[in-house]
Each structure stands twice: as structure tokens, then as C-alpha cells.
């Protein structure tokens, strides 16, 4: 870029709400002119103004900040900002009203059934939030000495211990901030293990084609090549292909079990032996841990390293896209490489395990110890469930999924793997509807929104055409499942009789189907007057 031609950055200017569409424009100006005539209301007639458009020069929420401009004259003027950033100037009531209204434009677990496959949208108990937000925990500085954090550290240590037990692993680190960072941790440890053994020819990670996209992306971030393994007709890993792929170049395999196809990988022991004999290690993607919680443990299946998504299995909130938490469990041979810090306990005091004790650690993954407040919520959940409750999670998640699968099958829907048990989730394929009626999985998904159900996961896994991946979780009532089946039956009838209802859906949301091509081509990522 030529620095002389780049315009100097300018703060945005404010406009009065009445003028908002006369001057509203996107950052990248091409084609945004059409927005000028756009309605200022959503379908329900409520305003869709931005917080900036509520702004009025000189208005402030004065209770929120220090009353005086303190003296900072010691800072040389060259370092100071010359123009204020363009932020809204609004009252506290305007802020509260604006964001309350925005919240009402969302679907959420608290307001709707959310059968989103592979996402485990179970109830997020209120106590977990209230108790994790006690003032003593919120006020804890991450570098406070352990003597001033024994209460916090006790919770973290006990969470590590419980996660070890439910996964059957030797050690657990809580620090990865999300599932994808947990995956990174796992594969980075696999690499550190091979490197420590002087085993540097291993340059390949095996990933089944049904895997989450994060799996291959992670392997690449750790400097590995990805070798995809196909799936057989029954939804299991294709053993022939796997045998052919395994070799001295194999660093490891990343597996989700049950897989994203909603079935349990029955030959897991055989796979584990095959990989281990070749000198590779097994990585368990814990996305679907809810299906087996209290039934079978990844450690007992032969996995060397596993990540858990606490925002799925341990009911911490999804928060509109995070924060997650992705603790990682390891077998004995990977323990030296575990990322830091980890909480230790000497019988008397809780303390941090750091680089001094674990010189081979792959290192740190965040400035402190990951998403502590999320871990606290998971801890509270685990203590409330207790041993008996933990054993019941998979039971009832599986009962709900199989019931829903049976009812949808009875209603004429085609499931992707009819000969198999559903785990905590299953796949319906709409390829017949697509062929005969021209109705896609997306059309079904969007129409479900009109019936006040969140759509299941669509077009994932990529292997099954026109798929809906459905995961009801254990916290839904039978009545809710029945209502969902009724909605699916009605939508099927609509697909046959008035398909435009589906093609044009949704009809009842704040907006109708959005122009995503335009969003990507005529980028409008920030507002300016």
C-alpha cells in the first residue's frame, strides 16, 4: 500500500435519527446505496436502528464514569489522541432499551428448543452463573498469590480430578480456551512427544472425512499434513482405507466417537491397536462426549489425548458464540508435555504447576489460565449432577435422540443410518424431498424457525446429502420433542402442497432470508455516517 494515498483515518460523525437513512452508508461504498431506502423497521414493526443512530451530541450516561477530567499533563502531547473516537452518546435508559430489544431478536435455549446437532444445546442452569459470579471470584486477579486464592484453586483442582475420572485420563489441563484450542493443544503435544523421541519423520495426521472442520485446520496449524480417511456405508471408519493409510509417516489420528454421523465407532479398539502398532497416537475430539458421559471413557477406548467442550457436555453457556472451554486430558506418556498452568495439591495447599516442574510442556495458550469463569460454571454443574447425575446424562440424551428418531421415522422421514442406534444425535436426510419437491434441508430449517424451533444443524456432516443433524439433549421434555415432530410433519405437508411457504421462509423473524453473496462481495463491516 502506498502510504501517501491512503486517507488518514477519520472518526465517524453523528447524524440525527431522522436523517439516518438519508446519509447511512457502509464503509465500502460500492453498492450500498440501496440501503438508503431500506425500511427502518423489522418485520414486526420494531426499530432496527443501531446504537449509533440513537446518539445525540453531548448526551451521556454520567453515572458510569469518573466525574472529573483528571490531570494527565505529564504525558507529552505528541502521544495524545487529537480526535475522540466516534462512540455513541446515549443515556443509560437508551442503552438498556436498545440491548434488551436486540436480545429479543435472538433464539436461545432459554426461549426455544434448539436441536442443533453436535452442539449439545442443553439447559444452562442458573445457579452455575449466579455462583460463578460471586464477588469474591470476580475480584480475583489472575496473578494474585495462591495464598489469596485457595477457594478458587480448590474448585479448579477438583474439576481437574472429576474430568480425569469421567474421561479415564491420567492428567487434565484446564487452560485451553475452547474446543479448537483444545485440539491445537492435543496435536501440539502429539508432535512434542514424537519430537522428544527423535521421531521426526512423522508428518501426517489422519482425519476421517466426517470430522469437524477444526480437525484438519488444527493439524495444519501444528505443521502436519492431513490425510482424509473415508467412511463406510454403515457410518464407521473404512478399515481398508485406514490400513492402507497407516505407516511410518503417521503421527496420529483425530477421531470423534460417536462420530458426527450420530453413530458409535464400533471397531474403536481395532483402530487404536492399528495406530499404536504403527507408533502413532490417538486424539479424541470431545465434541460428542455427552453421548457417552458415564457410559464409556475415551481413556478406556485407547485414546492418548482428548479435549472436552465444557460449553457442550458441562452446560456452560454458548453465549452467542463463546466463551467456550476446552480442557485436555492426557495419557501417561503425554503428561510431560501438558500445557501450563495446571493446579496441584500437596494435601495441604493448592498451588500452580509451572515450567519448573514441567520443562517439556508445550507452553502457555493464553496470558493466564484460560476461561476461568467458564471452568467455574462447569465445576458447579458437575457438583450438582454428582456421580449419579453424571451417569444419567448419556442415558437420557440417548433416550431423547432415539425417541425422536423413532417418531420421525414413523412419520415418514428418512434417517441416514436406519440400521444403527442413534447416539445422542442422528441424521435425517431430505434428499428425497429435494429430488421430488425441490425442497432443500435449508428450506426445512428456515421454516422450522416459523414454528418457533431453532433449526437443526444443516449441511454437516458433508457426507450426507440434504442432511439435518438433530440433537435434542437430555434436558428437553417429551412434550417438546412431540411438538417438534408435529412441526416437521406439518412442514412436510406444506412442502407437498404449498412449497413456496418453505422456499420463502422464514416469515416471522425480524428479517427474511439475507443476501449473503452481497454481504461478502459488498463488504459493509462497520457503520459510518
Amino acid at each position, binding site marked *: 500500500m502506498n502510504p501517501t494515498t491512503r486517507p488518514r483515518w477519520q472518526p465517524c460523525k453523528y447524524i440525527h435519527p431522522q436523517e439516518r437513512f438519508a446519509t447511512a452508508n457502509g464503509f465500502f461504498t460500492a453498492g450500498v446505496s440501496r*440501503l438508503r431506502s431500506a425500511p427502518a423497521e423489522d418485520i414486526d414493526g420494531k426499530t432496527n436502528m*443501531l446504537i449509533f443512530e440513537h446518539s445525540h451530541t453531548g448526551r451521556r*450516561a454520567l453515572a458510569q*464514569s*469518573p*466525574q472529573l477530567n483528571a*490531570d494527565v499533563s505529564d504525558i507529552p502531547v505528541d*502521544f495524545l*489522541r487529537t480526535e475522540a473516537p466516534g462512540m*455513541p452518546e446515549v443515556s443509560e435508559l437508551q*442503552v438498556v432499551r436498545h*440491548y434488551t430489544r*436486540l436480545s429479543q431478536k435472538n*433464539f436461545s435455549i432459554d426461549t426455544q428448543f434448539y436441536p442443533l446437532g453436535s*452442539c449439545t*444445546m442443553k439447559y*444452562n*442452569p442458573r*445457579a452455575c*452463573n449466579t*455462583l460463578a*459470579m*460471586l464477588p469474591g471470584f470476580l*475480584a*480475583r486477579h489472575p496473578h*494474585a498469590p495462591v495464598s*489469596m486464592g485457595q*477457594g478458587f484453586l480448590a474448585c479448579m483442582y477438583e474439576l481437574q480430578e472429576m474430568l480425569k475420572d469421567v474421561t479415564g485420563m491420567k492428567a487434565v489441563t484446564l487452560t485451553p480456551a*475452547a*474446543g479448537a*484450542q483444545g485440539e491445537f493443544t492435543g496435536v501440539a503435544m502429539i*508432535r512434542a512427544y514424537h519430537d522428544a523421541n527423535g521421531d521426526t519423520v512423522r508428518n501426517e495426521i489422519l482425519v476421517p472425512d466426517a470430522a*469437524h*472442520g477444526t480437525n484438519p*485446520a488444527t493439524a495444519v*496449524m501444528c505443521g502436519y499434513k492431513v490425510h482424509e480417511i473415508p467412511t463406510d456405508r454403515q457410518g464407521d471408519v473404512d478399515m481398508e482405507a485406514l490400513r492402507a493409510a497407516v505407516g511410518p509417516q503417521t503421527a496420529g489420528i483425530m477421531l470423534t466417537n460417536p462420530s458426527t454421523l450420530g453413530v458409535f465407532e464400533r471397531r474403536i479398539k481395532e483402530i487404536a491397536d492399528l495406530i499404536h502398532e504403527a507408533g502413532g497416537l490417538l486424539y479424541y475430539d470431545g465434541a460428542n462426549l455427552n453421548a457417552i458421559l458415564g*457410559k464409556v471413557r475415551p481413556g*478406556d477406548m485407547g485414546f492418548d489425548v482428548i479435549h472436552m467442550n465444557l*460449553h457442550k457436555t458441562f452446560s456452560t453457556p454458548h*453465549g452467542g458464540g463463546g*466463551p467456550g472451554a476446552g480442557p485436555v486430558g492426557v495419557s501417561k506418556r503425554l503428561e510431560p508435555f501438558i500445557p501450563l498452568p495446571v493446579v496441584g495439591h500437596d494435601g495441604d495447599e493448592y498451588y500452580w504447576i509451572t515450567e519448573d516442574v514441567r520443562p517439556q510442556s508445550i*507452553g*502457555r495458550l*493464553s*496470558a493466564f*489460565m484460560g476461561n*476461568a469463569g467458564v471452568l467455574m460454571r462447569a465445576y458447579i454443574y*458437575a*457438583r450438582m449432577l454428582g456421580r449419579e*447425575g453424571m451417569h444419567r446424562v448419556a442415558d*437420557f440424551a440417548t433416550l*431423547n435422540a432415539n425417541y425422536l428418531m423413532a417418531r420421525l421415522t414413523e412419520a415418514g422421514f428418512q434417517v441416514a443410518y436406519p440400521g444403527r*442406534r442413534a447416539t445422542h444425535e442422528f441424521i435425517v436426510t431430505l434428499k428425497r424431498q429435494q429430488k421430488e419437491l425441490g425442497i432443500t434441508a435449508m428450506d426445512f430449517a428456515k421454516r422450522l424457525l416459523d414454528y418457533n424451533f431453532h433449526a437443526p444443524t444443516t449441511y454437516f456432516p458433508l457426507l450426507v446429502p440434504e442432511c439435518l443433524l438433530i440433537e435434542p439433549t*437430555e434436558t428437553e421434555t*417429551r412434550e417438546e420433542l412431540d411438538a417438534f415432530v408435529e412441526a416437521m410433519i406439518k412442514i412436510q405437508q406444506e412442502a407437498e402442497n404449498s412449497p413456496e411457504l418453505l422456499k420463502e421462509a422464514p416469515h416471522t423473524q425480524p*428479517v427474511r432470508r*439475507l*443476501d449473503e453473496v452481497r454481504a461478502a462481495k459488498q*463488504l459493509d463491516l*462497520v457503520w459510518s455516517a
Partner: protein
Amino acid sequence: MPFIPHSETDIREMLAAIGVDNIDALFDEIPANLRMDKLTGVPEGLIEQDIARLMMERAEADGRPLCFMGAGSYDHHIPAAVWELTTRGEFYSAYTPYQAEASQGTLQLIYEFQTMMTQLTGLDVSNASLYDGASGLAEAILMAVRANRKSKSRRILVPTTVHPDYRRTSHTIVHNQNIELIEVPYSPEGGHTLAESLQPYEGEDIAALVIQHPNFFGILEDVDLLTDWAHRQGALVIAVANPVSMALLKPPGAWGESGADIACGEGQPLGVPMMGGGPYFGFMCCKKDYVRQMPGRIVGRTIDRDERVGYTLTLQAREQHIRRSKATSNICTNQGLLVTAATIHMALLGAEGLKRVAQACHANTRKLVAALTASECVEAVFNRPYFHEAALRISLPLENVMRPLHAHNILPGYALTKDYPELGDALLVCATELRSDADIETYAGHLGRVIEKQTAAGCPVKPKMA
């Protein structure tokens, strides 16, 4: 059964609909030899009143100390409305906004957040957040290597004035991709990065220079000079900045002739409690030319079929769920709930409120420095202008000073001894807008008495370092 709603009748009828006798039969595909016994490491379940009692006891035990510690996590006032709104179920329990029509609340909020962050940083575009400041820097480094078309290098200059844990985290995340992080030393007098320290790399192929400003010591870097040097070398500039500081200080987009190329940092000071270190959020902004190299989610404004304004995730072709092994990052989730809090926080404070917070933090830290260095045993380590945070050297073993202060429920600061042993017994202190004059006096008073006790014959017990 906590959180499981099934009655005995439900179970019986549901099993009949499936065509099995009991729940256990649903697990008949799991090989019998893999089935686990009873859990042993999980205690009996607690009802809500019992877990509440336990958690209250533990929270109390941690004491809510008087905090003079910063080093990446800051004790700011958070308006009551921020978390009242953020923990509304519709924000708290919503999923990632893939179904745009049913997620307009979250999507519009992120669009507002992106706008606010570009205003703060003075750059063109923003993503929807990353995990935290440290991993955000790692992502910025990976991004700079991809984005810098002029450079074939995988070498990044990282001054040692960048937060030590940010440097450690970046190393963990980028080293497997053969990216080399080269340390650049700081001035022992000023605590900042000198142009001379960059001389050895003059004319070399470097992908990017990282500048933390204010730096880890709170010292103001010569950002214009460093930025222009990097651009002359064909290197990109990655700014690491405290968002509160940007309300007062010149933003990264205005550094030097043409501004930093990428700005990232820790979003915690914008409405997120310290909470033991997380969840926080990393922010990232950049010049618009690099938007396609950005990691993480990005929200765009578009129109629906009736030409009504709406919001959606965009540029998803960069991301792992589409691109798989060719994605810009493996990142999937971001820190949505924290972005919700930060957006509401910024809306409430506005530009003037944020600036006043920055001013008050700085003025309080100056008062603190004055109060503490009134003791002959305490001196400022560096002689350059600083913001909001300062390094002090104590002419006593640091441990002996800190422990008694902890006993008085004071967090006296962050000990620099582990990361910067060359500075001697040095402490990084900070007083946010929440610290009153009385708080500062309390700290100075206790410190004075501790020093007195430790040095019955007066001070200093060992010569001050040059």
C-alpha cells in the same frame, strides 16, 4: 434428577415407541468390554442450597484484596447494566449466529462492536473477537506472515517490552509453523524499545514488527519512529494496545506516516471482571486490504429479500468449517458473551467516559508512584513517560516485602523478578480509577511499616542499582 425432566411414565412410553425394554439397550452398539464401572472421582450430587453454601465460603475465603496489580488484567468499574443485560438468557444461552434470521440481536451487536473497535483503534475493520490478548497476538503474527506479500520471511521482531506471557503464548502457537520470533532488547534507562536496537535488522527481510504501547512496563514507546522504520523495511506493524488507553492516546491507526497494519490486544478492561484470568476476549482490527487474511468471525451488513437491513456472518470462506485444512485459523468459537458485555460497556461510557477512566487511572497511578517512592527504599525503574502502570525498584528482597502486604490483604503489584531478573527487586504497580486516595495511603502506610521492620537500622540495606 437434576435438570432431567422425565417421569417414569415418559420413560416407559418413550422406550415403547423406540421398541426396546430399557435404556441400557440403547447402548448395545458399544462393545461390552469398553463399558465403564461406576465413577469414583465424582462426589455425590449437591442440591442448590448446598452448592451455594460451598461456593460462598470459597469466594469469601479469597478475600477481595485491595488491588494494585495490572500486568494484563485491570480492576475497573463495570456499570451495573452491563452484566444485567449480558446475562439475559437470550444473549447468554444463544448459539453462534449461523442461522442469521434467528440471531439478529447477536449479529447487530457484533456489527456495533466492530464499529466501536475500529473507532478506538483508528483502523478500518474489526473481527468479532478472539480468545484473549495473548492468543490474539499469536493470531496476528500468523496473519501478518500471510498478509505481507512483499516479504518472504517468517521472522517477526518482538521487543522484550511485550508482555512476557503474550510472547510465551505466541511461541507455543506459531513455532510449529516455522515462524521465528526474534527478541529485541529494551533501553535500561527508558524501558522502551530503541531505534538502535533495530539497527541489526536494517535491510533484512522481516515479516512484521510487534509494538506494545503502552508497553508491559507502562512505558510509552516511540510508536511513530518504530512504525515508520518497520514500513521502510517492508515489514508490517502489529500493535498491541490496552483499549482504555486508546481513548486517550494516539490510536494505532494514526501511528507514524501510515498507521499500524494490525492492532490487537486484551479486551478485558472494557467491562469484563478480572475473574481469575478469564473469560476475557482478544480484539483484532486491521487495514481493509488485509481483511481476507483475518482469523475469526466477521459480521457484515446486508439486505434481505424485501431489501430490509440485516446482519450475517460473512467472509466465511476464510474459516475452518468451510475451508477445513486451508482455513486462516482453526478458531471456531469466539468470545461472544464478553463482546456483548464490552459493547454495552462502551455504549454506556462513550468516548468521554472511556477517556475519563483512562485519565483517572493514570492520575491515580502517578499518585501511587509518588506515595511509594516517598520512601528512600523505593525508586522508579525507568525515566520515560508512562501510562497507567509503572515499574518500581525496592531495595529489599521483594518476597520479604510482598508477603506482609498480602497478609494485610493488599495486592502490591506484579513481581518482575521472574521475567526481568536484570531489573533487581522490581514491582509493576497500577492504580485504576477504583483506587481512592485513602486506598493509596493504606498501601503506602503498610509498605512504610514493612520497610521499617525489615530495616531496623533504616534504609537502604543494599545499595540501589544504577
